[in-house]
């Protein structure tokens, strides 16, 4: 692949050096910040020991950016932010400037370019993004599309700051969950066992590895038409798709039987309550491109109830914890069903081992 006349000797440099990209005000006050404020949605104001002030204006991006889009961001940064910009851990772009007067023009410029300003404080951050049909080899849906469709509907939440606390939403184009946890998560849930392509399985996959990948030991070796292959015990299989990641012949994806599930109450921060895992609250939603309206409906039901019922600083899961899950289902209009009762390895620890009950 590499051309023979290559002369460059690779430098294994690791991360790109961070110092180069720091705004001078950042450099001067590095480690010396004292507090922050929210002058308005989409804007942070950080004040340093030195008295220096730094404004941050935050804008949303599609994450799958074109060089044109990025060059546009650079133009904005050059004009309003001394030629520096940063990205957040959640795909937002941030422009840093010490000049208060530049803030409003900067906002105007971004909005005029179609880049919404917001996502700070007690609000909806943009939805964490994964690859989907655009690039991944195992997706059952498209991440960018789901995110775009949903953010179109949640844009007021992104632009405002009137939720009880931050709302972190994630999407995942398969059950491996590259997007991590969130207050709300939209995740593919398969509803049928993989169909096995016996033709090519033994040629392209390492059989023992595939067998080992299954969490419930549902896969056994077999021979089909004289070829080594695998067979699935359909009683055991719960359609997780782990085997598909190990072997493309274990075809788990299906236009009809790869549905959506919605999860809530995940939390990564340690603020107040401990970090918490997400819980399943809706499933069987159709995988319905290009705008997945059924998903939006559920997400909005949840957000509405949370916005109405949550107290200041309560994350979504903390709100549920306070009012109880029964109330959660009542207020969101979602329906609890038997599949939501855990039956996996630590199921017992989720049973209500008490007489505590609400009526």
């Amino acid at each position, binding site marked *: 692949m590499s051309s023979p006349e290559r002369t460059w000797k690779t430098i294994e440099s690791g*991360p790109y050096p961070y110092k180069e990209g720091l705004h001078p005000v950042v450099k001067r006050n590095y480690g010396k910040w004292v507090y922050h404020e929210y002058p308005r949605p989409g804007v942070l104001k950080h004040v340093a020991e030195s008295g220096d002030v730094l404004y941050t204006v935050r804008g949303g991006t599609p994450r799958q950016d074109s060089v044109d889009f*990025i060059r546009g961001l650079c133009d904005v940064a050059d004009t309003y932010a001394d030629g520096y910009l940063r990205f957040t851990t959640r795909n937002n772009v941030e422009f840093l400037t010490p000049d208060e007067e530049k803030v409003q023009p900067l906002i105007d410029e971004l909005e005029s370019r179609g880049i919404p300003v917001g996502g700070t404080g007690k609000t909806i951050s943009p939805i964490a993004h994964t690859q989907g049909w655009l*690039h991944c080899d195992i997706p059952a849906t498209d991440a960018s599309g789901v995110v*775009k469709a949903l953010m179109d509907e949640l844009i007021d939440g992104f632009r405002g700051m009137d939720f009880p606390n931050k709302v972190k939403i994630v999407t995942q184009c398969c059950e*491996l969950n590259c997007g*991590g946890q969130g207050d709300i998560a939209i995740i593919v849930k398969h509803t049928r066992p993989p169909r096995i392509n016996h033709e090519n399985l033994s040629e392209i996959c390492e059989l023992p590895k595939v067998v080992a990948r299954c969490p419930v030991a549902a896969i056994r070796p077999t021979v089909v038409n004289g070829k080594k292959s695998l067979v699935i015990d359909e009683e055991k299989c719960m359609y997780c798709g782990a085997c598909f990641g190990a072997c493309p012949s274990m075809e788990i994806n299906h236009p009809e039987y790869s549905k959506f599930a919605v999860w809530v109450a995940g939390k990564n921060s340690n603020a*107040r309550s401990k970090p918490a895992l997400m819980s399943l609250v809706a499933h069987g939603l159709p*995988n319905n491109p290009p705008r997945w309206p059924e998903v939006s409906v559920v997400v909005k039901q949840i957000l509405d109830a949370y916005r109405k019922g949550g107290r200041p600083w309560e994350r979504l899961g903390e709100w549920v914890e306070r009012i109880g899950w029964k109330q959660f289902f009542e207020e969101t209009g979602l329906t609890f069903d038997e599949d939501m009762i855990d039956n996996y390895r630590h199921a017992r620890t989720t049973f209500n081992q008490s007489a505590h009950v609400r009526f």
Partner: protein
Amino acid sequence: MSDAKGAGSNGSGNGRFLNPTPMLDELESGPWPSFVTGLKELAERTKKPMLRGVMDQLEYSYQTRMGYWKGGLVTVKGYGAGIITRYSMIRDKLPEASEFHTMRIQAPPGLHYKTDTLRELCDIWEKHGTGLIALHGQTGDIMLQGIEADKVQECFDELNQNGWDLGGAGAGMRTGVSCAGPARCEQACYDTLEMHEKVMKHFVGAVHRPEWNYKFKLKFSGCPNDCTNSIMRSDIAVIGMWKDSIQMDADEVDAWVEKNGMEKLVNEVVNLCPTRAISLKDGGIEIDNGNCVHCMHCLNVMPKALSPGKERGVALLMGGKSTLKVGFNAGSMIVPFKKMESEEDIEEFIDLADEIIDWWDDNGLDHERLGETIERVGMKQFLDGVGLEPSIDMVTKPRDNPYFKTKY
């Protein structure tokens, strides 16, 4: 819907380069910036066939509700990872995107850029690849999306000459993530950017030549707010921590109460402390620091009045990972406090991380993350194996069953 509309034709029709993509087009309306619009404009401007092919294939995916990429093996000289290889499964139908590889590039810690740097990157990428870039991947890489295998090496060489290096993939160390930290946050308890850079430089070989049981991730959050979601997404989560008392500026507390009122102080600060370590005192508050669990809440509400203590460092949580096989696993507290001020402190962390990775690589099964190995083999065995002292900080409560082997 087995026949993608217009797919495979060469942009004839409405006089434009791209083929019709009616489903995708529906994602062009609405207030949120559209990746479809971005992609279309890029394609129309650059006329890169690969981009047209990708749009066609994506449209076809939308129509058939299936994905059509499969993996493969492409790499650069001396490396075993960093390129995510994609070949189309429908190349006979849509040949223009028969290849669509991604180059994962390690971003600067903290994700701060000079515009010059970014423009340079865009130029190199547009030269060799599609011009489509994800800023950033969930593991923190810059993902340069869409290049052919035979252009990868030259593209990499040019990137590398400009200071860029590939990120991780496969069963090795992965690219790190760090929060804004001391660069733009008053809560940072250590230098997330510096530590990220130093540590990832140490592991650079393990990033490029994966040879462990499975992937291994590090994330650096400056405080327990954990703005990198490290606890759920890294095998070792490095989270800022302080050991002494919260610093309180009594005047600023008064000013806060003046401004926000006593009711808010009680409802939004005192009552929300998870261990009720905060009580009212002389119109302000008093913190029982021995009972503070470092949750950050009060500091978040009153950043001007309260800050982390002076004795700062990191806590290390281990075993976080996603859903595969065991369900989401949150990392758990292993080292509650470790100073993190000097080069030596970073060295010590690296030694410990090496030790842990060695243990895991020896004791783990294929495709088993650190957290799974600890769960399967046992925390005690893990601690023994890596030479750490057990502490009550590691558990929410002592064991509730008698099923243990004793030494006496």
